[in-house]
């Protein structure tokens, strides 16, 4: 293994490591724009130049590999001069419209200017005017003046999605990124180009002017859009999710996530059920647990007609308590599976199963006999085999005409208890509707399609009077004189892992 000396620090790295990576291992940051660990290396921005002893010219550190005995200086006078020159060159035609730029605050050009340049502009002529707010795709906007032509977006479309929409047109100071004639940046991962853009040239249309990035707080979470479970930074401001940003996890999603998944945060703040309801009247939790306990107690007496719908939208901990609640409190064997119907699928990240925790649900209920199909529930209600129903979440995994059949069949029920995030057709039909909170407001674990158990953290307090699913189960159990007591999610998690060897096996591969 070659030994290199970087700024006086000797370090042994693997053969074929680039100087930039070796410097990072030695603890020195080398500034760079065009280099991205997941993409090929064009070495066109010239920001990462370093001095290598014995070579006459400065070397691009993102591209040059280390050799044994190499002596590198990343902070010499020549390097500092080159970094200043590169930044000055990039800033010649940069509009410096940071006040109206969405990237301000997470912009590499801004950061590097403060760290490596910090000099006044010497430009005395007018800047070149280029295209502003160009709709390069349905989800992404392009600003030609801010663009530094690092070609990260072009390489992303070539190498990651393989859709090849983008290219550079013109030359010199007129050069711009454009889609090929007749194309637009409309692949299902297009917003990733806005993520990897080091400046504000490509910006997300959804996040446009919504919130300044320095105001955002970030929580490690998992996307609930499909069973792939992409790791995300859930970014929120004042108890409101502002956007999802992919979080690096080589086992699951690498640096990327899909556009559809990014927009799933909107469901957290639309049509939320915020107060417990009983027959359309708003109650408090104390009142509703009494009413619910009373009604559930009477319904349990009709043995064998109690249906329970569990949702793969809920976390493992919630489902674990759902199982205990169904078995110990309600004593029912009829457990049906809800959740979203299957949808679009590709061979990269997007999975057909649009529920984040199908594997977790199967593991938790796996050794408890058969889980029943949702279609069977509709038949059972219509035939009268199920007269009382307890349902988690409002998603229904059947086609539109079938779901209409389900909704009309609900009128036959003697008791319908719904425990869900959202208002809607089902909550108006429910005799008792209990507000549950979303994955942003509680913590838990999702098991993705591959069996990787991934924890997500709580970002902010539950909206309105909603509660996590597991707390609702505990409340109702207490009102019905059953012992079901936990204080923290990690207690449930521990018991769940002890209980289910299969889940433990799945959690062997730790999430990042």
């Amino acid at each position, binding site marked *: 293994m070659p030994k290199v000396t970087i700024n006086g620090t000797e370090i042994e790295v693997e053969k074929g490591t680039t100087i930039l990576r070796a410097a990072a291992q030695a603890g020195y940051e080398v500034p760079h724009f065009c280099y991205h660990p997941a993409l090929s290396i064009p070495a066109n921005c010239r920001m990462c130049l370093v001095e290598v002893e014995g070579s006459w010219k400065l070397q691009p550190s993102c591209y040059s590999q280390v050799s044994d005995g190499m002596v590198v200086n990343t902070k010499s006078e020549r390097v500092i001069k080159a970094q200043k020159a590169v930044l000055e060159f990039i800033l010649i035609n940069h*509009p*410096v*419209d*940071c*006040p*109206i730029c969405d990237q*301000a605050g997470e912009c590499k050009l801004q950061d590097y200017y403060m760290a490596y340049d910090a000099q006044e502009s010497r430009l005395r002529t*007018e*800047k070149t005017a280029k295209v*502003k*707010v160009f709709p390069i795709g349905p989800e992404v906007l392009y600003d030609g003046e801010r663009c530094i032509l690092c070609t990260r977006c072009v390489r992303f479309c070539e190498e990651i999605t393989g859709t090849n929409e983008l290219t550079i047109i013109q030359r010199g100071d007129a050069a711009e990124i454009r889609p090929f004639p007749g194309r637009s940046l409309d692949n299902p991962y297009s917003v990733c180009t806005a993520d990897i853009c080091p400046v504000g040239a490509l910006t997300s249309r959804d996040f*446009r*002017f*919504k919130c*300044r990035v*320095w*105001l955002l707080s970030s929580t490690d979470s998992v996307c609930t859009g499909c069973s792939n479970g992409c790791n995300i930074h859930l970014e929120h401001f004042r108890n409101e999710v502002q956007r999802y940003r992919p979080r690096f996890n080589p086992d699951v999603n690498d640096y990327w996530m899909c556009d559809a998944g990014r927009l799933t945060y909107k469901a957290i703040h639309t049509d939320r059920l915020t107060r417990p309801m009983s027959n359309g009247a708003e109650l408090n939790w104390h009142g509703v647990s009494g009413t619910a306990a009373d009604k559930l107690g009477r319904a349990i007496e009709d043995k064998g007609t109690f249906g329970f719908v569990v949702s793969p939208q809920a976390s493992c901990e919630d489902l674990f308590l759902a199982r205990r609640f169904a078995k110990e409190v309600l004593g029912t064997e009829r457990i049906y599976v809800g959740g979203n119907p299957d949808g679009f699928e590709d061979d990269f990240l997007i999975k057909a199963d649009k529920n984040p925790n199908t594997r977790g649900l199967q593991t938790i209920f796996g050794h408890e006999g058969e889980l029943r199909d949702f279609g069977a529930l509709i038949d059972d209600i219509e035939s009268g085999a199920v007269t009382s129903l307890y349902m988690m979440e409002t998603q229904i995994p059947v086609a539109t005409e079938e779901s209409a059949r389900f909704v009309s069949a609900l009128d036959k029920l003697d008791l319908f208890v719904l425990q869900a995030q959202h208002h809607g057709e089902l909550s108006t039909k429910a005799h008792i509707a209990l507000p549950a909170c979303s994955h942003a407001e509680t913590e838990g674990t999702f098991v993705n399609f591959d069996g990787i158990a991934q924890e997500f953290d709580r970002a902010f307090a539950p909206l309105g009077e909603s509660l996590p699913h597991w707390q609702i189960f505990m409340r109702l159990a207490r009102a019905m004189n059953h012992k079901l007591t936990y204080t923290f999610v990690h207690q449930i998690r521990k018991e769940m892992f002890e209980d289910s060897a299969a889940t433990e096996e799945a959690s062997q591969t730790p999430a990042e």
Partner: protein
Amino acid sequence: MANVNVKVIDREPQSLWEKSYIPEIIRGLAVTTGHFFRNLNPSKEKRTTFTRNYPEEPTIYPERYRGLHRLMLRDDGQVRCVACMCCSTICPADCIHIEAAEHDDPTIEKYPSVFVIDELRCIVCGLCVEACPCDAIRMDSGVHIPPYGERNEAFYDRDLLMSMGGRSQAVQGGKR
């Protein structure tokens, strides 16, 4: 612990004259009564009082007095502010609420569709003016915050703040 220089001060014990209480009280009252009669003097200059009959006798504010906010205008009368949120970010009292939007005019990319300052919450520190990159907000109106009958009256919205504004000498968007 670090060394602390302690200076011991000798307290003089009260004399018998002071301990007897009554004469010192009379001396204090004499000072108060002296001030009282001095301020009854018909000639204003000879009075020593610092209170004023506001608003009949308004105070003359110093030149750099920070009064009510105002929003400056572009040459065509539109709001200069580009909704960069620098003022609302720096505001220690968290009293500025801005919602950004896209303007119909293609030369203006971003503008505040909502701009509300809660003047009751404002602590008049002037940091918003310092933070503004485009001379859009100023506190040089010279008017101090009036008393409000209701909470809502203290919410100054964009149009009200613009009605107090004027044209700025600075070039919009900086020099190109």
